């Protein structure tokens, strides 16, 4: 018996009913097995007590993805009116060792929603992103915190720092878009012009990285600007003898937009670049560039 015997003397653990196939012998970890037996017994009675809370902790240590346990734990916490700040510490420890577990992040969200206090959240998320700057759960949660508690003010600075550290971080580029366009205060025309300048500088640092290209095309489309504003950037990179499929792809976009308005030279030039991409510089996506060629030819 690894659980305190006295505390559990009134409970008869319920053994596992492993479905209709009881053929194979059961020999798994005795401690986990015992804890689950008591869990089945007390959850059936919906017991909300200190010992039940401790039991959930024990099972979670083994298996943090056990979603039924988490829900039960939450009901106990609320019923006993526990100190939820202590629980935040508990979840933090859990997330530190299991940063990609859905249940843990959602549990934290429920707690913070109940506390209506997000003062610990951004520093905590920063820590997690410090270890893995692309953790999807952390980013989703960060967006929820920012929206719910109106913490937009310093977010662009935070994103700037991340992009200074790693210009290839796609999650940070996405967060940039979120920070600018999901903010209840809409960006001014002047801001957007500066923003495009900012991205252009970043692209120059790593022209073969898809993320800022996607981002800049996204904001150009969103703000109804002309993709032609990127031509100078493309030429500048090409003049440095850098061959980048993304630069070439951007030029295809530019030529196509002009071919659509009747420019025969652009149509021809666009087709020429598509052929180069298909045959030489991005052969793995040959069929995609072939498709772009057909579209260009149709203008």
């Amino acid at each position: 018996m690894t659980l305190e015997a006295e505390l559990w003397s009134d409970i008869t653990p319920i053994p596992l009913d492993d479905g209709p196939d009881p053929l194979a012998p059961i020999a798994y970890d005795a401690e986990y097995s015992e804890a689950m037996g008591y869990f089945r017994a007390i959850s059936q009675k919906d017991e909300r007590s200190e010992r039940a809370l401790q039991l959930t902790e024990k099972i979670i240590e083994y298996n943090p993805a056990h979603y039924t346990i988490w829900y039960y734990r939450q009901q106990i916490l609320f019923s006993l009116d526990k100190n939820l700040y202590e629980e935040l510490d508990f979840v933090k420890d859990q997330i530190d060792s299991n940063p990609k577990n859905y249940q843990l992040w959602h549990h934290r969200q429920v707690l913070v929603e109940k506390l209506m206090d997000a003062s610990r959240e951004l520093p905590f998320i920063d820590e997690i992103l410090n270890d893995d700057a692309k953790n999807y759960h952390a980013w989703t949660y960060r967006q929820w915190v920012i929206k719910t508690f109106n913490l937009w003010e310093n977010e662009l600075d935070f994103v700037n720092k991340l992009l200074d550290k790693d210009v290839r971080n796609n999650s940070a580029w996405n967060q940039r878009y979120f920070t600018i366009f999901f903010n209840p205060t809409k960006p001014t025309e002047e801001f957007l012009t500066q923003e495009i300048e900012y991205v252009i500088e970043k692209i120059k640092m790593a022209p073969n990285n898809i993320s800022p290209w996607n981002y800049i095309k996204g904001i150009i489309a969103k703000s109804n600007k002309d993709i032609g504003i990127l031509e100078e950037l493309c030429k500048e990179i090409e003049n440095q003898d850098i061959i980048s499929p993304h630069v070439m792809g951007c030029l295809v976009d530019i030529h196509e937009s002009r071919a659509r308005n009747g420019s025969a030279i652009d149509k021809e030039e666009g087709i020429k670049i598509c052929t180069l991409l298909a045959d030489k510089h991005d052969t793995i996506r040959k069929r995609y560039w072939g498709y772009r060629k057909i579209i260009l030819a149709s203008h």
Partner: protein
Amino acid sequence: MDTSEKQTRLLVDLHVKYIQSLDTKKDDLEYWLTEHLRLSGVYWGLTALDLLNNVDALKKEDVVKYVVSCQHDNGGFSGHIGHDPHLLYTLYAVQILVIEDALDAVNVDKIVEYVASRQDRDTGAFTGDEWGEIDTRFSYCALSCLSLLKRLDAVNVSKAVEFIMLCKNFDGGFGNSPGAESHAAQIFCCVGALAIVNSLHLVDADLLGWWLCERQLKNGGLNGRPEKLEDVCYSWWVLSTLSILGRLHWINREKLIEFVLTAQDSEGGGIADRPGDMADVFHTLFGLTGLSLLEYPDLKPVDPVYCLPKHVVQRIGLAERYHHKEFQ
């Protein structure tokens, strides 16, 4: 596991044996720690077996009995007996029962009631369970499930579509919630859901198609987001979406086939996330469904919207809800 030898063919018999053996590993703690997703494992294994022309390798009677034992009074299914019901497992249960042609073994009206109860009336989003987590994965689960049960009338479809469209991003992709980064698996869920309710016109197919084929790396494998590692499971999430959009041929077929085949365990069977890693049933299914979409021989065709063998979807009379284009 053998990493030295480069596999050039699909090890059908070994994969069948591997999947059959999964339910006999009860001495491993790991088996019990994954108990909460046992039902998913049955779906992954059974679908893989059907694609391998071996659906009978798991006894129908046992499978159906097990699935039935996971249904709760409220109509939803849990990942295993004694766990809480959840939309994820409710979809897996329905998919298994449809494969086994055994929907009459459960109370379908109760399932419909459960799924419908998970929709938020104001936003159109779906919560996974009572706990309240919202994610576009659950939008797919709900719509796919109801479509298989032919009861889409039970939810507000236009509201559901509205929520999914809020999750569409500047790069043409979709995330798990409004503003969240595009991710190939979330994209499958969103585009699959839109396909089910005849709303593919809302997808920017060229822009998204580009983003998806851009996921192919030099080694032939696909990643799920820019600058991430390749993983066999994206052979499903990325390819299924491209297939739904009629742009599957934008992928280099030969290179991807080679990548998936190299991730096979040539001794124990099964497919891993990438060559050299341990095989598991999740990656085994998504390696096989990927190969099936690439029209690899020896495999039955898979439906890119429902992730079920195509003959199953045809049997229940659901039209092909996607743009079809053969490799040329």
